[in-house]
């Protein structure tokens, strides 16, 4: 281990202006422990009074080596790592990973499993946007919104717990389908949520959307134009708020999204308020999708019958020698995947969540790369905060919806 060097201004000389070196402007650390950075993010700010000249993010505090760890586990066991990646969107991460594995080994998913996957990921999208909205309000000193959002999020977490036994780290979606069928109470619980939630969204809007203080803080702040957004790889609601109609659920439908009738909310302003409106509209679109999926929820198996990849049901193990062998092989050795690499992407609440997966013929992934949306979305922060005030920086940072587990992996 090398001796820890003092951090000095020379390392940042190429990032800050000349005035910072001469001491005319101030260099200030925001974070890594700061309530407005949404986790352990450090921003090195160059300030001229209250005006932000440069905001240089320093990430990696939450780096846990998920990609490296996944290389050491079988395809089935590596899935639990994906829950820990973006902890606001756990079923969405599971879905992205399972879709990548299914594409690599060429495995089909039955229709019922697809519909349940859609319902769960859309519920999780609402839960994630609720945390976003709550924290966004909190950063703008609207404390009560946070409490209301977490009240509704709890209903969704209860539904997830009902299915998988876990509130957050569900690992419910598995390669080839889902872990097991949803319980009988599932449908009524989701319908109950669909009944109460639209009114609650209206309540949040009543608190925020036309609130003059809220609007003063957001309208025209942190403008991001479409060309800059694409150059910086920004995806998700932040890109759609800049006028680009790009949603992978529409553009490259997966899991039967082409059957559902929903809109992709877009705005053209590209400011912080537009990002807020897009998030609010996505609540309503997600509810539409859940309702349609629930109405047409087909009966049938919930995972693939291909025993080479999906473990047999418990009841078969006692009576079938082959099932016992398959069960044993899958949980000890795992299944082999062919040599080759694929890239598979889904629309997470934050943008394009892509999985690059490479197999080498063995039971463990040779290489997994997680293209996480928050990472690229954060990289634009210096561009859109230059010239704003520190208080606006807080609002902009909250509006681009970052999750540090997603950035650092």
């Amino acid at each position: 281990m090398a001796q820890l060097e003092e951090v000095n201004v020379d390392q940042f000389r190429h990032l800050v202006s000349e005035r910072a070196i001469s001491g005319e402007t101030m260099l200030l650390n925001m974070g890594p422990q700061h309530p407005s950075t949404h986790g352990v993010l450090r921003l090195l700010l160059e300030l001229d009074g209250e005006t932000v000249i440069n905001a240089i993010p320093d990430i990696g505090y939450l780096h846990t080596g998920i990609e490296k760890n996944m290389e050491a586990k079988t395809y089935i066991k590596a899935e639990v790592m994906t829950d820990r990646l973006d902890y606001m969107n756990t079923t969405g991460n599971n879905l992205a990973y399972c879709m990548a594995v299914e594409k690599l080994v060429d495995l089909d998913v039955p229709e019922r499993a697809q519909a349940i996957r859609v319902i769960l990921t859309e519920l999780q999208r609402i839960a994630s946007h609720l945390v976003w909205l709550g924290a966004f309000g909190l950063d703008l000193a609207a404390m009560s919104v946070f409490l209301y959002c977490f009240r509704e999020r709890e209903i969704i977490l209860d539904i997830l717990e009902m299915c998988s036994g876990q509130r957050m780290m569900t690992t419910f979606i598995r390669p080839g389908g889902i872990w097991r069928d949803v319980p009988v109470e599932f449908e009524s619980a989701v319908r109950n949520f669909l009944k109460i939630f639209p009114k609650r969204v209206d309540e949040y809007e009543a608190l925020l959307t036309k609130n003059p203080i809220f609007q003063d803080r957001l309208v025209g702040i942190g403008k991001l134009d479409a060309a800059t957004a694409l150059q910086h790889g920004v995806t998700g609601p932040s890109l759609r708020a800049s006028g680009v109609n790009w949603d992978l659920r529409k553009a490259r439908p997966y899991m039967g999204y082409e059957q559902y009738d929903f809109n992709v909310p877009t705005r053209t302003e590209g400011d912080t308020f537009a990002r807020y409106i897009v998030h609010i509209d996505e609540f309503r679109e997600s509810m539409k999708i859940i309702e349609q999926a629930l109405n047409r929820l087909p009966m049938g198996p919930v995972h693939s019958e291909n025993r080479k990849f999906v473990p047999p049901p418990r009841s078969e193990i006692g009576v079938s020698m082959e099932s016992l062998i398959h069960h044993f092989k899958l949980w000890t050795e795992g299944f082999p995947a062919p040599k080759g690499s694929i890239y598979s992407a889904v629309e997470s609440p934050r943008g394009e969540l892509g999985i690059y997966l490479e197999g080498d013929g063995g039971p463990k992934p040779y290489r997994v790369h997680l293209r996480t949306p928050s990472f690229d979305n954060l990289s634009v922060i210096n561009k859109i905060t230059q010239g704003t005030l520190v208080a606006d920086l807080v609002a902009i940072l909250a509006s681009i919806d970052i999750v540090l587990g997603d950035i650092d992996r």
Partner: protein
Amino acid sequence: MDNKLEKITQVLQKDFGATLEEFRGEVHVFVKAEQVVDVLSLLRDKYEFELLSALTAVDYWPQMSPRFNVVYQLSSLAKNTTLQIRVPVNGDPPKVPTATRVYEVANWREREVADMFGIEFEGHPDPRRILMPVDWEGHPLRKDYPLGYEEPQFTFNFDEIDLRKPYAKE
């Protein structure tokens, strides 16, 4: 192959001597390291690949030639299609020209690859480590880098393990 991609890959084969591979409907185009900036500029400007979705690398150690593949995953919003550019590299450190001037997102993604694989991106405007601490030795995602672990500390062996734990003291 998607007929939208057919024309593009033909141009890449003719002008850059690129080789193609197909797997599960995805097209992988192999080009040389010194051509990569030209290829990416051409794809962005002429064929509407506006988004560099992902930039990563794969280590094929102990195979030494080529040891690494740098992977550029491109998306076209206008055409709704994807294309993967792969650049085989070796050497110590392997060198690839930076794509930051074509796609600004490459700035952070290249820093990540440089941090994790030790691949040098020539001409990069900000070549610092991004995820690992500044004084970290080695590149964790290389295949010859062992997967480490942390020893759990209990009351009876807390001080003993603390002494050999690699973090900053004082």
